[in-house]
């Protein structure tokens, strides 16, 4: 895909590199299984990047390396100028499941990362900020509700707040809305775009849905399996802000087709 000048959500040129991966490889089982081979990737400030590929293409390995959960076998992983050697507070993460804890209220769940890192007193101080965040995601009034009483979408909104409370430099999103029904999912994706824009967040999304990747992303990393590697990085030059309506435009369809073609090629290798 040809790209005009890439813009961030506000329409300004994209910022400095935030997250850089350089020739990152990961092998398992005494170097017999190559999960990831020579992956190089740069996430710039305020950009939205998606990674897509069939199962076994190493995208979850990539995400775990970027989250500092597992070390790479080779290569450099640098976030905000510092190598990633473990979990960090400037990395925010969100999973397929909301993973809220039922013995804590929504707002207590949101300040949990602060409680873990800085203790109970700091968590208490962060409550006000948690309230503001809940306001941003449209959960005002649900602060003291237990997760059992939240719908799937509301639970994921809560976990978005929990991810944002530490003001991370990068958001790692592991198929965050794939457990929701399609209508809620579209709505949450648009919400995600709005929130990322308001927070000027740098986001990295793992997804199985080409449409979802195209509607949200500036860059789409298409991966192919065995060994997991990057096939191509596709730029999406649809204007911001994106709307669900854009999914019916020819440009959108072209990009989707192009990516599907890349994925099909990957399958036959």
């Amino acid at each position, binding site marked *: 895909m040809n790209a005009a000048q890439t813009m961030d959500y506000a329409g300004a040129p994209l910022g400095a590199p935030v997250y850089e991966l350089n020739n990152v490889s990961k092998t398992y089982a005494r170097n017999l299984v190559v999960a990831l081979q020579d992956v190089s990737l740069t996430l710039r400030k305020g950009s939205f990047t998606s990674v897509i590929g069939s199962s076994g293409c190493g995208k979850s390995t990539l995400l775990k390396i970027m*989250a500092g959960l597992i070390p790479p076998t080779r290569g450099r992983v640098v976030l905000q100028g510092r190598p990633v050697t*473990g*979990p960090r507070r400037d990395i925010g993460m969100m999973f*397929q499941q909301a993973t809220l*804890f039922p013995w804590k209220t929504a707002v207590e769940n949101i300040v949990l990362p602060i409680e*873990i*890192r800085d203790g109970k007193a700091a968590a208490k101080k962060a409550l006000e900020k948690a309230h503001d965040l809940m306001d941003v995601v449209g959960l005002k009034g649900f602060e003291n509700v237990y997760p*059992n009483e939240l719908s799937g979408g509301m639970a994921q909104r809560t976990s978005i707040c929990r991810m944002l409370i530490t003001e991370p430099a990068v958001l790692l999103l592991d198929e965050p809305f794939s457990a929701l029904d399609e209508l809620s999912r579209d709505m949450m994706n648009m919400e995600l775009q709005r929130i990322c824009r308001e927070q000027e967040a740098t986001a990295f999304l793992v997804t199985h849905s080409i449409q979802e990747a195209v509607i949200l992303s500036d860059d789409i990393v298409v991966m192919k399996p065995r060994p997991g590697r990057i096939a191509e990085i596709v730029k999406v030059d649809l204007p911001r802000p994106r709307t669900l309506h854009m999914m019916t435009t020819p440009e959108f369809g072209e990009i989707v087709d192009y990516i599907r073609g890349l994925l099909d090629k990957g399958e036959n290798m």
Partner: protein
Amino acid sequence: MTDVQSNRPADQDEDQDTVWVQEVAFIDSVPRWMAMSFVFVVFVGTWQLVTSLGLVSPIILPTPLETLEDMIFVGKNLLTGGYMLGALWITIKEVIYGFALAIAIGFSLGVLVGETTFGEKAVMPYLVAIDTMPKVAFAPLFVAWLGFGIESKVALAAFIATFPIVVGTAAGLHSADENARMLFKTMGASRMQTLIKMKLPTGLPQIFTGLKIGAVGVMAGAITGEFLGGGRGFGELIRVAASQLNTPRVFSLILYLSLVGLALYALVTWTQRKVVFWHKERVGAYDA
């Protein structure tokens, strides 16, 4: 049209309005207390019939009325602070101490087994091996080691109640899902934080299941200990009454004893409701 409809009698199909009356089973329309009373009446009635017809010797099975009379007698003795109250108090102490000991040991071992690889690999197999032994058979040993006082009964009661608590705790610690573990890792939580703030609360329902099974076992342990190791508890009263062929007394003592067991069980259930408030369990008769 489906088979179901074509099989219906014609008059139902065409002549009537299609009002779907959902059939309610009779038992669903009866309140629980009524159903329970029904079973009680049938049970006592059969019992009365069998005994008054002389089908069973009164030495083997007393009549309900005899049992009730004896219950009143025992009840009076208990209320007026007679010797039976002393015996009951001894048994209650054995149960409480035994349960407390079982919780302390069971919980610690459960954390060891559920949280550490060493515990899981090296300790768990032995626990399983001991658990499969008939634990009552250890009673003579406890008597030999600890004497005829309440210590040997506390030991047996605790011994029996410990294993379900170990298993419940270990299973509870394992019940946290992969996402929750990963989330705590990304938050940079220490092992201790992960255990206390996530694994333990997640496992509370299983831990309480273990406690409930333990609460039942501790009672059996205390009474068995008294049967086999003497002493001056309620079990001893039962043993003496049985040896005198005083079956109404045996019956009424057992019924009073069951109240103690029920109270302990209800205490655990009540605590569970207060502590694990988020876990909506199907509430049945078992949960008192």
